């Protein structure tokens, strides 16, 4: 996207009178000639028709009652209501961690930070939320502020390293909270992953899918670039095999055949875990290809310089090659995360109740027959919000990192 000076859209070259007037703008962008004017009229007409169709449906036809009635199901699936406090705790801690990490890495309370804090506050405005839910959202906002301020007083030298420790600690705590521990009648009884569901499960599957696939993907990418033919060939076979078959076939295989591959009594019985294995193996091949793009962008001189100063292959990979390659592919990996997040919907086809799976159970419920349009519209909008926000953020990140410009 380059808008060089001197193009017709550049205001400075237009006569003074046309510069900032509404009429001038309209003439330039909508009515510059006959064809353009015709296009504008057709466009306005189609926008009008589509908007009327959607608005009529949304305000007259649609029965929105199904959403508030099943809201908890959509958010957390079969996760026991009595244990919901654990999920809220996970969210508070997420707020705190984001606040902490933000202070440590970004360092200032800029516009993006304000938007992040505003999210829970805006969610409080959703009409059918109970006062309790609103209170919890408020606590989330307060928790993220708290994280931000606490980080300011911590005597920390290595900010980046500290931030990654905080994130790792959060992940461990999150898993313990979600999974539970101890006796069934204890304070935090175990909740089997098969009961996790809804948006919660979709996000978890995407997050752990990409995180677990990352090391494998990096290894495969390095293998594919290796000088040693046997290692290269095996990496290529894995990558091309996985990329050549549909995810759905891997998911089915994971459900039906994973058990066959493992010795008797191996504890991989949970459907969700089996799906996660399939997703991880799938995602690794795509991570590998993306990382390979980064590796290829590194000039040969970097390898040579690393060799010349005496670094071993391992040392130069860790200290010179990977840091540069990974930095170059961060935006691409965010893109991959988004598409993996969308792809997790496929687990609904193997009997797992993620966001889509839950939606299918809701419309199958006799109480809510015929609400396909409403339920699927809400699911689609939820997915859209998440993935659009992420791709928007990634584009900003890309500009900040200045990828492609040294």
């Amino acid at each position, binding site marked *: 996207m380059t808008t060089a000076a001197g193009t017709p859209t550049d205001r400075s070259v237009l006569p003074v009178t046309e510069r900032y007037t509404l009429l001038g703008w309209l003439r330039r962008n909508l009515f510059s000639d006959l064809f353009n004017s015709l296009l504008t009229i057709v466009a306005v007409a189609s926008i009008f028709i589509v908007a009327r169709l959607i608005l009529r449906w949304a305000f007259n036809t649609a029965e929105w009652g199904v959403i508030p009635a099943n809201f908890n199901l959509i958010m957390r699936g079969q996760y026991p209501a009595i244990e919901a406090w654990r999920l809220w705790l996970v969210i508070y801690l997420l707020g705190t961690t984001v606040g902490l990490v933000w202070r440590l890495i970004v360092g200032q309370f800029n516009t993006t930070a304000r938007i992040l804090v505003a999210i829970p506050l805006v969610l409080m405005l959703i009409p059918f939320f109970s006062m309790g839910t609103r209170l919890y959202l408020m606590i989330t906002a307060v928790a993220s502020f708290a994280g931000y301020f606490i980080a300011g007083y911590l005597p920390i030298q290595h900010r980046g390293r500290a931030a990654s420790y905080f994130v790792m600690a959060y992940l461990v705590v999150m898993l313990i909270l979600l999974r539970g521990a101890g006796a069934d009648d204890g304070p935090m009884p175990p909740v089997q992953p098969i009961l996790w569901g809804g948006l919660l499960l979709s996000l978890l599957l995407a997050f752990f899918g990409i995180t677990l696939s990352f090391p494998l993907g990096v290894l495969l990418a390095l293998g594919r670039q290796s000088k040693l033919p046997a290692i290269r060939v095996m990496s290529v076979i894995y990558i091309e095999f996985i990329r050549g078959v549909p995810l759905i076939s891997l998911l089915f295989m994971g459900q039906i055949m994973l058990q066959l591959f493992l010795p008797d009594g191996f504890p991989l019985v949970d459907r969700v875990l089996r799906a996660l294995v399939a997703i991880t193996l799938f995602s690794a091949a795509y991570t590998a290809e993306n990382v390979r793009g980064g590796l290829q962008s590194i*000039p040969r*001189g*970097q390898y*040579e*310089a690393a060799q*010349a*100063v*005496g*670094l071993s292959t391992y*040392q130069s990979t860790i200290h010179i090659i990977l840091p540069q390659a990974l930095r170059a592919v961060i935006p691409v990996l965010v893109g991959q995360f988004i598409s993996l997040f969308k792809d997790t919907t496929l687990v609904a086809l193997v009997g797992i109740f993620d966001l889509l799976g839950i939606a299918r159970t809701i419309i199958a419920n006799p109480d809510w027959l015929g609400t396909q349009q409403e339920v699927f519209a809400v699911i689609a909008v939820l997915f859209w919000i998440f993935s659009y926000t992420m791709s928007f953020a990634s584009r900003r990140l890309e500009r900040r990192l200045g990828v492609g410009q040294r």
Partner: protein
Amino acid sequence: MSENASADEIIICQDVCKWFGDFQALKNCTLRVQAQEVVVIIGPSGSGKSTFIRCINRLEEHQAGDIIVDGIPLTRDVRNIEQIRSETGMVFQQFNLFPHLTVLENITLAPIQVRKMKKDEAMDTAMGLLNRVGIPEQADKYPGQLSGGQQQRVAIARSLAMSPKIMLFDEPTSALDPEMIKEVLDVMQELAETGMTMLVVTHEMGFAREVADRIVFMDGGEIMEVGTPEHFFTNAQHERTKLFLSQIL
């Protein structure tokens, strides 16, 4: 044991050959370099100058002949390769600084990782080297923020940080704007005066005349002529040497 060499000869290349596919890039190159000597290699582009010095620290693998650096034969033995690489520093035409590391980190990386030096000690050495190449104030910048000449001086400091016995320079000034060439050549001249053994591929004839102990002329993958600067610029023997000198002087 007829072909024994004196202990002062720090680099010995005997009949070194190298092929890229069918193309023979080096044809029986033989050269012996004394310790503390400065040897400048000149020749038309594509004559194998760069390939030759890149063979000495094994960035390229030679296929026939012998290379011995500081008494260590360069073979497929990984330990020997490691030793030779840590005893030779190399400066590239394109600098090849690590863009994701600061100037200081560029210099301290190898001492800390390879020599297992303490970080503080490595930083002190690095600052000393930056002082020596004249840019201590740039220590915390990233390579992308420096001019070409400054980057090349950092690259020299980075090589020196491993306290090498030999420095290889592969056209160190060819990628520089004219006004920056001198600052790099000055650093190299000063380095030569401290008694560093240097092998320099360059087109800078002024530098060759002033600093070199010997000049090597290569053409078509062969070493055509070796001699002192006076010999070269006044009394070159070989026709092709004369032709080359007449073209560039």
